[in-house]
């Protein structure tokens, strides 16, 4: 539930972006989205631990890992683009965005790995 709050905060920041066209708002939105992502991923990890049936847990773990991988690839993909912009224009804002996106992708990979190991 708390993750929803952070995603809504990200939306507010992105709507400010469309009004003022200041890239700092993307940085703020990505920060809020990162917190939301971490909360969401960790709560999913905990809820999977509560599934007592092994087969059911493995099935759910596989779906979760697949989903998390898709999101992490999206994070890394956009991180590559913003890093490109950052290097091209020496724009530090974009470098921060790239780091935030890489962080989000990495955390999702780490949580996925944990879920995979626990699902075995």
């Amino acid at each position, binding site marked *: 539930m708390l993750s*929803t709050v952070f*995603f809504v905060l990200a939306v507010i920041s992105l709507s400010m972006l*469309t009004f003022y*066209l200041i890239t700092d708002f993307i940085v703020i939105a990505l920060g809020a989205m990162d917190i939301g*992502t971490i909360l969401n991923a960790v709560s999913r990890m905990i809820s999977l631990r509560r599934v007592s049936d092994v087969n059911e847990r493995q099935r759910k773990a596989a779906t979760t890992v697949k989903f998390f991988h898709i999101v992490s690839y999206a994070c890394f993909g956009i991180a590559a*683009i*913003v890093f490109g912009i950052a290097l091209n224009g020496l724009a530090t804002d974009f470098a921060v965005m790239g780091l935030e996106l890489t962080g989000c992708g990495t955390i999702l990979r780490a949580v996925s790995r944990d879920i995979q190991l626990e699902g075995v």
Partner: protein
Amino acid sequence: MVELWKLNNLFKLFLLSFIAVFLFLIFVLDNIIASRYLLLVLAVGTVAYLVVSFRANRLDSGRPIIPQVRTHITRVHLLGIVLILSLFVSSYIIVRTLTAPSSFQLVKFQYLILPNGTALSISPLQPNNECAWLESMSITMQQIAQRQGLPDCDFVSWYHRASPPTLFLEFQNFTEFTYNLNSTAVRTTGSELLCFSLSSQSFQCWVPPATVSHLK
């Protein structure tokens, strides 16, 4: 019915694609008008997300689930929460009060008068003393500044080699002018400006109606 964790991930993908499309519209297509219409897409997506997550939440709470361990908030937990919150509040108060600028005086952009009465004459740095805080500007302002050939203040050499006494005047449109300061015997008065000491003899000032919140 979609589960909440899955919905959150889908919404995250939606927000990431929003950012990607926005950057594409601005940097590749140079279409600022179209980027404004993205707000509608964002609003529709958010409303859909909130409605679905609310319904998913209601279904989850109605379903019998595995008995959960009831978490008790102990004194340590409470102390931790209070400590974290007080860190945020005290940092804000410290930054707000202890970093308050001392006042200097600027007369017709010719002299800077220090609080102790010392007068310094101002002369523009040659050949060009103007730069732009590009990252603080909106995208349209950035494009105007770049068309004018203004260098980014982050990377201009004088900003990092302010060994001689220097004055930086920042304006509300995020452009900044740099001046050399020299001692003078002139005694005069003028209106006060907000200035910060950058080093022992360098200052950064905000010219009205610019505000201190624009400090980089």
